[in-house]
C-alpha cells in the first residue's frame, strides 16, 4: 500500500508517545515496541508517568509518556531526544517538545487544540497556528473525529469510542515506519482478547490511522528501520520488574526450592509482587504483608523454614527493613532484598528514578552488618542478576541486596529467551539429618558458610537468634567471640568475591579515561564511552554488577587508566565508596539528581568538559 512514498532507511529511531494519563499511552508504546520487535528491531523503552492515578485532565502535570528506542543496531538506552513525538493534546506537546529533535516529526490530535485545553496547557496561543512549530514536521490529524467516524458503525457510546484514539496514532506511526498492519492488528486483538468488542473497535481505529497516512499529502517519505543483527532465537519484550520476578522464580526452580516473596506494595517495585502473585501454578507463594517490616520478616520466617525467600521494595521500604536485614545478617539466613530505587529522600518523587540508595544498601543497619550488594544493569539483566542474587544468597547463606531502579524496572528490552537447562545449578548447603557434629555456626573452612538445618530435619534441633552467638549457637557476650564473629561475618561476604566474574573493560583497555558505572545507567554510560572514544578521547568503560564485594580485579582495572570518572544518578555515592575501598587513586565524578535517566549527549558533553580541564 504505502509503496508510493519513498522509504528512508534509519539505523535507529526514538519515538515518544505522550498524552493525558487516561489516553492509553503506555499501551500504545508497548504495542509499538512489540510490533517493532517482531519486525526484527532491537529496542529499549522508558515509561514516564505522573504520580497521580488520573492527574488533572489536559494539564502538564497530568501528562503520561512512553518512549521507545528502536534500531537495527544494538540499542543501549531508551534514547535521548526523539525523532517522532506523538502528542495527544496541547499539554503533551507543551511538556515534551523540549525532548523532540530539531526537525522531528510531530503527530498531534488537532481536535484537542481548542481554547480551553490550550490555555490549561499553559500556552497563550495555539501552537499549531502561530508558526512556533515551523522547524518541525507537523502532522496535525483530527484524531478524535476520525476515531469517532471509524467506529461509528459499531454503535459505541462516544466515551468508549474515544478511548481508542491512541490506536489511530499507532496506526499512523506503524505506516510511517513501514510496519506490517496485519501483525499489528493481531497484536491488538490479542491484547483485547477478553473484551472482543473493544478489540474490534481498536482494530478499526488502528486501520483508520494507517489509511490516513496513505492518503496524506503532508508526508513525503516513510522510514524504515532494518532488522538488528541479533543472535537468532526466540525473543520476548520484557520489563525489568517482570524479569526480576522471573529471575527469582527461575532460581527457586533451579535450587529445587519453593519461592516465597513477602512484600508490601510500593512504586516502582509493586510489579514484582504482582507478577509473582500470578504465578501460583509454579508453587510460588506471595505474602502481601501489612507493611515492609512484615514483608521482610515473613520472608525471614520462610527462609528459616527452607524456602528461597525474597522481599521487594523501593527506598522508603528498604529503610523500614533495615533492622530486620540485621536479623538475617546475624542468623546468616539466605534472603534476597530487591530495592527498585526511586528518587528520594523520603517519599521524594515516587515515579521518578534515581540511584540514591547505594549507601543505604551498604550501611543502613546498626552495628557491623555486612551483606552482599548487587545491581542490575538493564531490564533483561534484571533476570540474570536476580537469579545470581539468589544463587549467592543460598550458597553463601547471606542476605543479598539487589538494586534495581524505576528506569530499568519499568523499562523494557528484548530478551533472548534462555533455556532453564543452561542456567547454572544452585546447591544450598543443607545440613545432613542427624549429623552428630552439627553446630549452627560451624563454617565451611573455605567459604566460611554455615550449614542450613531446616526445621523438620531430624536430629538437628537448634535455636537461632539476634543475639551474638558462639559457634554452638549459645548467646554470648564474650569479647573475643564477638570480635571473631564480626570478622567472620565480614569475611564470609568478602569470600563471595572468589566466585563472581572479573570486571571487563569495554572500549580502550588502558587508555586515558575510564568511565565507571553501576546499576541502570550501564547503557547510557557505555554509549557515552563509545562516543567519547570516537571523539578522540581514549576511553574505556567498566560497569559494576557487584558492589559488595567488588570483583577481584577491581584495583588492577581502576589503576590501568590515567583518569577515572564515576557517573551516577546521585550525588556521588559509588565514587565515595571507591575512595574508601581503593584510596590510592583519584576519582572524578559526573552526577545528576534529577529523577531522569542520563541523556547520552549530556554525558558526552559534560564529561568532555571535565576531561579537558584535568
Amino acid at each position: 500500500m504505502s509503496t508510493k512514498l519513498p522509504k528512508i532507511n534509519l539505523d535507529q529511531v526514538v519515538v515518544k508517545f505522550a498524552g493525558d494519563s487516561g489516553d492509553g499511552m503506555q499501551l500504545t508504546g508497548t504495542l509499538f515496541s512489540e510490533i517493532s520487535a517482531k519486525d526484527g528491531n532491537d529496542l529499549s523503552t522508558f515509561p514516564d508517568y505522573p504520580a497521580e492515578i488520573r492527574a488533572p485532565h489536559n494539564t502538564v502535570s497530568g501528562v503520561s509518556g512512553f518512549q521507545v528506542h528502536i534500531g537495527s543496531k544494538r540499542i543501549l538506552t531508551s534514547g535521548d531526544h526523539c525523532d517522532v513525538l506523538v502528542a495527544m493534546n496541547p499539554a503533551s506537546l507543551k511538556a515534551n517538545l523540549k525532548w523532540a529533535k530539531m526537525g522531528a516529526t510531530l503527530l498531534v490530535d488537532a481536535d484537542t487544540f481548542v481554547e480551553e485545553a490550550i490555555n490549561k496547557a499553559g500556552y497563550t496561543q495555539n501552537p499549531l497556528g502561530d508558526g512556533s512549530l515551523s522547524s518541525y514536521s507537523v502532522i496535525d490529524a483530527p484524531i478524535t473525529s476520525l476515531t469517532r467516524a471509524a467506529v461509528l458503525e459499531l454503535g459505541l457510546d462516544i466515551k468508549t469510542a474515544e478511548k481508542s484514539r491512541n490506536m489511530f496514532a499507532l496506526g499512523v506511526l506503524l505506516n510511517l515506519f513501514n510496519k506490517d498492519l496485519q501483525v499489528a492488528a493481531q497484536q491488538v486483538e490479542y491484547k483485547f482478547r477478553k473484551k472482543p468488542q473493544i478489540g474490534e473497535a481498536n482494530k478499526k481505529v488502528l486501520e483508520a490511522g494507517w489509511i490516513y497516512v496513505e492518503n496524506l499529502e503532508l508526508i513525503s517519505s516513510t522510514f524504515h528501520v532494518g532488522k538488528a543483527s541479533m543472535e537468532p532465537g526466540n525473543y520476548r519484550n520484557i520489563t525489568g520488574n517482570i524479569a526480576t520476578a522471573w529471575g527469582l522464580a527461575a532460581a527457586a526452580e533451579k535450587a529445587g526450592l519453593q519461592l516465597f516473596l513477602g512484600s508490601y506494595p510500593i512504586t516502582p517495585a509493586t510489579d514484582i509482587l504482582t507478577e509473582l502473585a500470578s504465578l501460583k501454578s509454579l508453587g510460588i507463594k506471595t505474602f502481601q504483608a501489612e507493611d515492609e517490616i512484615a514483608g521482610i520478616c515473613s520472608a525471614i520466617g520462610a527462609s528459616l523454614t527452607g524456602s528461597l525467600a525474597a522481599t521487594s521494595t523501593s527506598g522508603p521500604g528498604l529503610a523500614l527493613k533495615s533492622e530486620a536485614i540485621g536479623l538475617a545478617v546475624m542468623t546468616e539466613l539466605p534472603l534476597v532484598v530487591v530495592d527498585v530505587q526511586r528518587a528520594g529522600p523520603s517519599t521524594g518523587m515516587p515515579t521518578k528514578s534515581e540511584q540514591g540508595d547505594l549507601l543505604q544498601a551498604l550501611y543502613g543497619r546498626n552495628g557491623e552488618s555486612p551483606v552482599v550488594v548487587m545491581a542490575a544493569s538493564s531490564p533483561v539483566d534484571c533476570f540474570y542478576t536476580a537469579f545470581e542474587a539468589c544463587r549467592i544468597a543460598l550458597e553463601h547463606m547471606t542476605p543479598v541486596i539487589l538494586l534495581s531502579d524505576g528506569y530499568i524496572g519499568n523499562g523494557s528490552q528484548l530478551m533472548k529467551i534462555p533455556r532453564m537447562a543452561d542456567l547454572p545449578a544452585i546447591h544450598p548447603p543443607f545440613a545432613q539429618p542427624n549429623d552428630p557434629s552439627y553446630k549452627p555456626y560451624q563454617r565451611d573452612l573455605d567459604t566460611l558458610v554455615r550449614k542450613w538445618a531446616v526445621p523438620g530435619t531430624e536430629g538437628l534441633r537448634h535455636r537461632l537468634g539476634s543475639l551474638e552467638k558462639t559457634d554452638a549457637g549459645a548467646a554470648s557476650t564474650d569479647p573475643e567471640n564477638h570480635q571473631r564473629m564480626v570478622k567472620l561475618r565480614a569475611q564470609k561476604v568478602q569470600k563471595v568475591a572468589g566466585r563472581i566474574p572479573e570486571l571487563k573493560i569495554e572500549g580502550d583497555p588502558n587508555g586515558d579515561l575510564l568511565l565507571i558505572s553501576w546499576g541502570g545507567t550501564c547503557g547510557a554510560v557505555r554509549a557515552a564511552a563509545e562516543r567519547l572514544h570516537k571523539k578522540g578521547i581514549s576511553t574505556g568503560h567498566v560497569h559494576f554488577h557487584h558492589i559488595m564485594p567488588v570483583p577481584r580485579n577491581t584495583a588492577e582495572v581502576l589503576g590501568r587508566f590515567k583518569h577515572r570518572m564515576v557517573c551516577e544518578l546521585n550525588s556521588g555515592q559509588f565514587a565515595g565508596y571507591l575512595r574508601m575501598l581503593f584510596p590510592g587513586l583519584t576519582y572524578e565524578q559526573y552526577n545528576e539528581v534529577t529523577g531522569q535517566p542520563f541523556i547520552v549527549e549530556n554525558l558526552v558533553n559534560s564529561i568532555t568538559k571535565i576531561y579537558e580541564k584535568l
Partner: protein
Amino acid sequence: MIEGRIAHSDIPLTKDEFVSGSMVKWCPGCGDYSILNCLTQAMARTGYRKEDILLVSGIGCSSRIPYYVNTYGFHSIHGRAAAIASGAKSANPDLSVWMATGDGDCAAIGGNHFIHILRRNVDVNIILFNNHIYGLTKGQYSPTTPMGTVTKTSPFGTIEQPFNPAELALGAGATFFARVPDNNPKLMTDCMEAAAAHDGTSVVEVLQNCMIFANKAHYEITARETRDDRQLILEDGQPMLFGKDKQKGLRLNGLQLEVVEIGKDGVRPEDILIHDAGHEDPIMHMMLSRMALPDLPVAMGIIRSVKQDTYDDLLEAQINEQKSVSKIRCMDDLLNSGDVFYIS
C-alpha cells in the same frame, strides 16, 4: 489444616524431652518458669515430632523461652515474631509453629503484626506473657499497664488506658483466645493443648507475674485465697459457675452480665448462662473478655474457639488449584509463554 499434615512422633513423648537443658536465666520466682513448664508439657501432648515444632519469639524476658525448649527455635527481634511466624507457617505448613511474646513485644512494637496475624488466621499458637511491664528493659510501663501505675517511665502514674488483649484480639477477628493465670498449670497446659489443636491463630494470654518490676500485678485476680471468687473458669458447653462451691454464676440481664447465686433470689441452675466458645458471633465472647473486678469475676480458660479457614490452608489450596488448571508448569513454560517471536 489437612489432617496428618504435621508428622506425629512414633513413640509417645514426655515433657522432659522438650526441655533443652540450657541454663534458664529468669529471675528466681518469675512467672515465666511456670509457663515453660506448661508449654513443654503441652508440646509433648500434641504428639508431634520435636523436629516438626518451631518456636518463634521476639525480644523480652519472655522471648528467651526458645532457648529452653528442645525444638527448633528462633529468638528474633523486638515485636516481629508474629510476622516471622506467619511467614514460617505459610511457607512451610508441615511445621507446628508456636510463638512466645510479651505484652510489650506483642502489643506495643508488635501490635500491628499481632492484629494482622489474627485477621489472616495463620495457624500459629501464640503464648502471650502479660506481666503489665517491660521486664527485660527494667520496668517501663507497657500497653497493658493499668491507668495510673507508677513505673520507671511514669513516675507520676501512667495517663494511658491499657489494652485488654482479649478485646483487641476479638476486634481484630481472633478465632481462638484463652486467658490463664500463671499459677494454674493445669488450666494453662489444657489451654495450650487446645490452642495447638485449633486450626488458625490461637492466643493464650498468661497473666504472668514479674517479681522484680511489677510484683503482684495480677494478685487481686490470682491470689490463691481469693481466686475461686475472682476467676470464672470457662468450660465449653458448661454453665458459667464459680466460687468455692460453684454456687455463683453468670446471668444475662439485657446486654449486661451479672453475678447471681444459685438458690438466692430464686436463681436456679438452669438460669446460668452456658459457655459456647464455638459460637461464631463474638459478642458474648467480648462480654466475657471485658469482665473485671470488683463487680464481675475475670474470665479464664478458652473464651473463644471458632472454626474458620486458615490463611495457610487457603494459600495451599489456591496453589493446588492453579497447578491443576494452569498451562504454566515450569519456568521454561513461563519463559516461552505469551508473546514470543523468533528472530533469525
